[in-house]
């Protein structure tokens, strides 16, 4: 990383949801994200991983201002998006796009493919003529591997993989600088998943895109990301360049997560020692005191229940939130996955 200003600078973002519990009752609060900070440089792909309920999708939405964080800043090219009025934010929308997990559910079933892909142009770039828009739609369809003659078809005529290509074309058409990809391949079959992953990296290089890639699948995240944020119960527990994270994880949770990924290699799978975690993820409404991970951590000691570990530097360009990361013997992890 050079001394350039990061393209996206997320500073201490906290997002809290209220949960209604009944008439005249005090609503419960759920802290979906707590004090999250990281930077993304131009052209970089940042992976965000974690299990269900860790806040990874909420984080993607907070970056795009589809949700407003209660605290913290989201600096986009130096400007704080959280303070912008909706019409000011609209000017940035063409630069900031999103691709969703369920490709069919995220496409309007009553619009043609051409209409769906064109839609962002109509709202975000009204200066374009109808003819220019049409030409752009065809260009995008070709870029994502859809035949231009499919332009008048409806979403239900497409398979999951093709529908995801439509979603990608729609995100690309405004020539965005950054795309948040929220589990873009989770709903797809393996052979199709590989096609979409290849397409995304091709498009990234061709259009010089910066990607934020959200996934629960560590193999997929490893495949695409330059740097990775690991979340657990709304907290950032580790942040490191890809190879450092996978070869030398510092946080016990990251290590457990890596060994838990099934390896598609029978011999390796038989040798592997899995650091099995106790239990399941606690409810985010009532997270454990101190370190959120302590209830499942094999290394937890009394201080972990008393004090929340700050995220601190654990080497060049990387950080970790654990009271004991220095003491824990890090065994090399055999991760074929």
């Amino acid at each position: 990383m050079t001394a350039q200003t990061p393209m996206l600078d997320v500073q201490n973002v906290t997002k809290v949801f209220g949960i209604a519990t009944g008439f005249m009752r005090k609503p419960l609060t759920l802290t979906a994200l707590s004090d999250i900070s990281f930077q993304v440089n131009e052209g970089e792909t940042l992976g965000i991983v974690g299990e269900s309920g860790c806040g990874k999708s909420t984080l993607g939405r907070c970056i795009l201002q589809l949700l407003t964080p209660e605290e913290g800043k989201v600096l986009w090219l130096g400007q704080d998006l959280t303070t912008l009025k909706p019409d000011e934010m609209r000017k940035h929308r063409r630069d900031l796009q999103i691709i969703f997990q369920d490709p069919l559910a995220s496409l309007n079933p009553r619009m043609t493919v051409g209409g769906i892909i064109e839609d962002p142009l109509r709202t975000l770039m009204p200066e374009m003529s109808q003819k220019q828009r049409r030409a752009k739609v065809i260009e995008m369809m070709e870029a994502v591997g859809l035949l231009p003659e499919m332009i008048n078809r409806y979403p239900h005529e497409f398979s999951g993989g093709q529908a995801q290509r439509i979603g990608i074309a729609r995100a690309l058409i405004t020539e965005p600088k950054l795309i948040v990809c929220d589990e873009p391949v989770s709903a797809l079959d393996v052979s199709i998943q590989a096609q979409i992953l290849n397409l995304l990296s091709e498009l990234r290089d061709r259009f010089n895109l910066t990607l934020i890639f959200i996934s629960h699948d560590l193999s997929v995240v490893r495949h695409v990301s330059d740097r990775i944020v690991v979340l657990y119960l709304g907290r950032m527990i580790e942040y490191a360049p890809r190879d450092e994270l996978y070869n030398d994880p510092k946080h016990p949770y990251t290590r457990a997560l890596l060994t838990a990924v099934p390896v598609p290699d029978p011999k390796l799978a038989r040798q592997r020692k899995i650091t099995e975690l106790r239990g399941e993820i606690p409810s985010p409404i009532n997270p454990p005191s101190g370190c959120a991970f302590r209830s499942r951590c094999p290394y937890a000691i009394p201080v972990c229940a008393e004090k929340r570990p700050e995220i601190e530097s654990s080497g060049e360009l990387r950080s970790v939130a654990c009271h004991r990361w220095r003491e824990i013997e890090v065994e090399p992890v055999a991760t074929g996955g």
Partner: protein
Amino acid sequence: MANVLEVENLDVTFSLHDGEVHAVRELSFVLGEGETLAVVGESGSGKSQAFLAMMGLLARNGRATGKAKLAGTDLLALSSSELDKHRGLDIAMIFQDPMTSLNPSLKIGKQLSEVLVRHRHMSEADSAKRAIEMLDRVGIPEASRRASSYPHELSGGMRQRVMIAMALLCEPKVLIADEPTTALDVTVQAQMLDLFKTLTADFGTALVIITHDLGVVAGLADRMMVMYAGRAVEAGGVDDLFYDPKHPYTFGLLHSTPHVETSGQRLSPIDGLPPSLEHLPTGCAFHPRCAFAMPECRKERPKLTDRGPKRSAACFYEGTLSEKEAAQ
């Protein structure tokens, strides 16, 4: 090793308003005692329907022909009431989503003990006791207290444990698990795979695991069968198929899976899309997507033939499968 399940020429057909669709075609395989077989395939490959057929759980417009012999008894020839005597007793099935498989209005202890009252004619008290033992066995903490919980009070991983406990109560010869860990988080999945390994070994149960995840296959199975468009295209030992696949589809699946060496590089996906079962290509159903296809693949369908000790593949191409060869 004796075979507990022998499937011969299983066909599963669904009648639709405009004709018939063959979801499974000429499927034959055997399952040895205590063995773990992985059935691998993408959506629409027929991997789930084949086993739903054996369990008598096909949708109303579906019908199955052929034989599926469980310790000599042909399950497909049984009436639904005769089948009930076997289901849960010597063959059991669990599904991806445990919430929809459990009765939401019955306490889990009761759901388990019912199985024993029915199949083993145990008393209420004994069956309740045995249910708690089983819940404890599958790793449910405070099993005796949990037995009086309703399914919605449990997490996804706990519900799947309850399903496994229920399926193994009568120590069946065969357990069929259809994508049992797909809905679970990766750390919970690891616990569950471990549980499968221990329990099938302890009870001597043969396990069929239906999955699309090759990582799950590698860690758990002894043998695997790859299905494409309703047919088995390759079968054999897990090591044989992973390290030396003979069918281009198996090869393609292995190379589409991201792993450590592919970081930051292009994956080698299988081109194109799986075919619609209503409009299958002529000859080999995989030929339009196959990098090794030859003229005869379009005309004739290759039969599943032996390709070495205890392994078979349905493919005319007999050369080496490598990306370089594919490019030529």
